[in-house]
């Protein structure tokens, strides 16, 4: 079976559309909520889901995702919950590409081969590990290749040309461009050098580029849609979850608004 991420990218390319990737923290505020939310945002215009697995020390993340991770961990969220949740979604016919987002230590501790086999079996399509560079932990990339899981790497504004090429080669499906110097978290304004940086890296990367970090409003989404192949929104969605009082509808509404802005429908 073709990887769902690739399928989605091809579909978007054919239609000339942009990709909207929504990040949610697993088990925040609860596992049933996460499950319901993914189904709703898949219908609200999200093209991909990044399912964030909580870690005790998320050093690439700002206060919003830190807070949601701590809350999820207090509820005792484990890998088996992630596997079961995605398995259920797939059984219900939910076919949106789902990317596992998580820090390396829990994966390493669980066992790299065992982990990659389990997430594949559950129905995940790819993997983003924010504290893993392409140079380290080669067994994980081998295991992912073997399982047909896409491993997606990040390019930062500070990444030098030679490395951009390396990462473009190693990253599968698309390349995740970090819009700013700093941790995740909604920002009022976009970094002022995004346009300049993108024009530097664009010729070096043949794969689609999705931009993430700091994107919080439909205006941001619209502006970045013009510069890239899509966006990843995390903290702004998690913040909406926090404020939604356990209801998925307002969150799905926000996703819809963002996706429409990105795709030039507003």
């Amino acid at each position: 079976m073709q990887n769902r991420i690739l399928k989605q990218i091809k579909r978007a390319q054919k239609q000339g559309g942009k990709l909207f990737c929504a990040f949610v923290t697993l088990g925040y505020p609860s596992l049933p909520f996460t499950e319901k939310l993914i189904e709703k945002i898949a219908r609200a215009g999200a093209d991909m889901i990044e399912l964030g697995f909580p870690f005790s020390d998320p050093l690439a993340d700002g206060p919003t995702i830190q807070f949601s991770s701590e809350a999820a961990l207090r509820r005792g969220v484990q890998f088996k919950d992630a596997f079961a949740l995605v398995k259920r979604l797939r059984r219900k016919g939910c076919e949106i590409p789902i990317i596992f987002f998580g820090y390396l230590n829990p994966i390493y501790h669980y066992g790299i081969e065992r982990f990659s086999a389990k997430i594949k079996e559950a129905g995940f399509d790819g993997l983003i590990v924010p504290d893993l560079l392409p140079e380290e932990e080669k067994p994980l990339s081998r295991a992912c290749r073997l399982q047909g899981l896409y491993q997606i790497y990040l390019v930062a504004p500070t990444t030098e040309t030679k490395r951009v090429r390396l990462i473009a080669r190693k990253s599968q499906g698309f390349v995740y461009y970090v819009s700013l110097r700093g941790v995740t978290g909604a920002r009022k304004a976009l970094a002022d050098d995004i346009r300049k940086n993108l024009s530097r890296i664009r010729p070096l990367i043949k794969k689609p580029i999705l931009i993430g970090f700091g994107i919080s409003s439909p205006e941001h989404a619209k502006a970045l849609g013009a510069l890239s192949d899509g966006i990843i929104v995390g903290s702004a969605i998690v913040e909406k979850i926090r404020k939604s009082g356990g209801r998925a509808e307002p969150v799905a509404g926000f996703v819809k608004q963002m996706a429409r802005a990105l795709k030039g429908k507003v």
Partner: protein
Amino acid sequence: MKTLPDRAGHFGIYGGRYVPETLVKALEELTRSYKLLKKDRKFQEELRAYLEDYAGRPTPVYEAKNLTRHFGRARIFLKREDLCHTGAHKINNTLAQGLLAKKLGKRRIVAETGAGQHGVASATAACVFGLECVVYMGEEDIERQALNVYKMKLLGAEVIPVHSGSRTLKDATNEAIRDWVANVETTHYLLGSVVGPHPYPAMVRDFQSIIGKETKSFFLKNWKRLPDYLIACVGGGSNSIGFFYPFLKERKVKLVGIEAAGQGLNTKRHAASLTKGSAGILHGMKSYLLQNRDGQVEPAHSISAGLDYPSVGPEHSYLKDSGRVKYETVTDREALEGFKLLTELEGIMPALEPSHALGFLKRWIRKTKRNEIVALCLSGRGDKDIPAVRKAFEKGISGSDPGKRKRNREKV
């Protein structure tokens, strides 16, 4: 033995670089510059001058005759890092990295601190080199180490309390890294121990290895032989690696690192990552780590804020696996006994960190012979810990109140 780490910063399976992509450029830059400056005679000369004229190096090696007599076994020598300016070995590293930051053209340094010793040493170096200094410190540590917090402020540093996670050193380190990610082009991360992503574990080791070099030349010059044992406490592991490193190839010298067993290895409240942990990834490195069955990091505990860290430098992990260094543990209670013993017998108040190494002597030294030599790294002085020690003794944690002890005249 080949030199470690390898080019990518690995000590066997440990070490390496596990960081967000944003930091790669800065780490590469740092690795390159450090490699150049290591061979740059002008830099080395400048650093030597600061270490000697400012920090007070070389520090003495003192034969603790009363302590030796007390145990009646091997002769005990203390490497007096407690006599360094700012009261601990931390200044060796902060002066070196401060000078390096200046050469790199950085105007701002960020640092993490647990006990506050590295924070004070960083703020001090920032004064010397005219750098802006921001120190991240866990809320809980800010309460425990009020004196050092005030010292940092007097030195012009900004101390930022960290409310996340366990609110101690681990979380202060996360926050310092987050700050660095956001300000990487103007800021140098002045990491205080032999932990973190490459090149920090190797670079900080090199800067601290002056401790071992001086110890080695002291013994060769005055005793025409090397000690039989070196003992040092291990938190992140910078004083111990600095002490051990020049002796690694001296196979006859036995090396012992002492971890904090906190309230006991069978409780959850300890910091013995090498003894009770397993390989894991935290703060940019792979090393032994205290973690639960899901691979979430467990909070550490020690009476000494400086040892209160759930991981350890990757080179220690390598040295443990290779068997070159033996790692033992000492509880809060034993450390307090060690503190008391040195204070009463030698008139030296040790910091609670090296008090762990002292606490180990009581249990172990009877295995040594009278003609053997033990060198112990007294990594810092105890001023910062007096409130904690007082609280513990008043609660009756370790034996009798030191004031009520009968003085043994013949030892004085």
